């Protein structure tokens, strides 16, 4: 269990940021599910509840999601169920249970860049941008690939386009962590194949993604691309599975996801 020496509930994001960077052991509070598993000694905990960052709104070009929006709000949101074949609600729906998803927050998950994340894999397959208070707005891809100074993640922007998308995952049992997850999306001729929980962080499988666009998508060619995808990236071993095992199931999940995307309306 963590220890909290001091708690602040700032009314502005500027004040929240100032409190966060004041000392090294100051942190932002999300839903606390992960924090609670550790035994950190926290100086000042910065609570964002007064900043009104709990929302999902539709704008002209983006769906904007505030950092303290819960997983369950995303899962049940009509907009996000309609866009991208409901890939975001689908990706979240296996994480522990309803009560848990009513507790954990999107900002915490994205900021933490968890390797096992279900949500990051799906978000990366869409045209997603994030905003850090200090670091500014950038693509999710760039955020995941680079490191930044301690900051507050404020908002997430998901480009509203006609992307068709599908999410696949393998778990030992319902509500366990994923052993591997895959999201595939297609906008016109542009494909993105994303693999996560490798167990490393989700990445876009670049060459295979380009290759799908060039092929006539029959069963044989999809097999070929799926094999190519699993050869292009590296996998690791942990208590949930070996690198070899992950590589083998990667082929299967990528193939399934491509076939599903082809069926998407």
């Amino acid at each position, binding site marked *: 269990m963590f*220890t909290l020496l001091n708690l602040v509930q700032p009314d502005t994001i500027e004040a929240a940021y100032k409190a966060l960077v004041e000392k090294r052991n100051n942190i932002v*509070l999300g*839903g*606390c599910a992960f924090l609670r*598993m550790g035994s950190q000694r926290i100086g000042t905990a910065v609570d964002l509840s007064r900043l009104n960052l709990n929302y999902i709104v539709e704008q002209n070009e983006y769906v904007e999601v505030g950092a303290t929006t819960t997983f369950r709000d995303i899962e049940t949101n009509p907009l996000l169920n309609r866009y991208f074949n409901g890939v975001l609600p689908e990706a979240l729906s296996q994480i522990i*249970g*309803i009560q848990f998803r009513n507790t954990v927050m999107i900002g915490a998950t994205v900021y933490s860049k968890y390797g096992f994340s279900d949500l990051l894999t799906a978000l990366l397959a869409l045209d997603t941008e994030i905003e850090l208070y200090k670091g500014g707005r950038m693509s999710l891809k760039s955020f995941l690939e680079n490191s930044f100074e301690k900051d507050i993640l404020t908002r997430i922007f998901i480009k509203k386009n006609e992307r068709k998308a599908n999410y696949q995952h393998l778990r030992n049992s*319902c509500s366990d962590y994923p052993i591997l997850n895959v999201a595939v999306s297609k906008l016109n001729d542009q494909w993105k194949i994303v693999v996560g929980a490798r167990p490393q962080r989700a990445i876009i499988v670049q060459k295979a993604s380009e290759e799908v666009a060039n092929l006539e998508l029959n069963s044989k060619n999809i097999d070929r691309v799926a094999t190519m995808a699993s050869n292009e990236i590296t996998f690791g071993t942990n208590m949930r599975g070996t690198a070899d095992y992950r590589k083998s199931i990667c082929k299967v999940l990528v193939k399934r996801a491509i076939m599903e995307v082809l069926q998407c309306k």
Partner: protein
Amino acid sequence: MQIEVIVNLKKIKMEVDANEFLADTLRKYGILSVRKGCDTTCCGLCTVWIDDKPTLSCTTLSFRANGRKITTIEGVHKEANEFAQILVAEGAEQCGFCSPGFIMTVLAMKNELTNPTEETIVHYLTGNLCRCTGYMGQLRAIKTYLGVL
């Protein structure tokens, strides 16, 4: 610090530490139906409603409940009783330890879902673990309770 919470429709002032979780605070104030069954956020025993949403009270810092409405099984006596009788009739009553959290989830499901399928019911209940019996009798009881036999 002091917070003011509406617990089962009654306004209560509570003294809490910044560190304190809602499950512990509620127990401290005599609401003993709230229990904890794990240290890992995964068993659902501690489920209470915050503003009518089923939430893990073991993971929610108490100060965040300030000004909000908390419902525990003591606050939904009639509905809980009605469902408990159906459980008993199915021979699927649960141990006293896990049933408050379980029943709070079932009642929340009744409020949230219309005409759920078996699959939807199971999905809604995935966050409530039982360490000792099974889930089939409970599922039959829930279907009867929701009228979706």
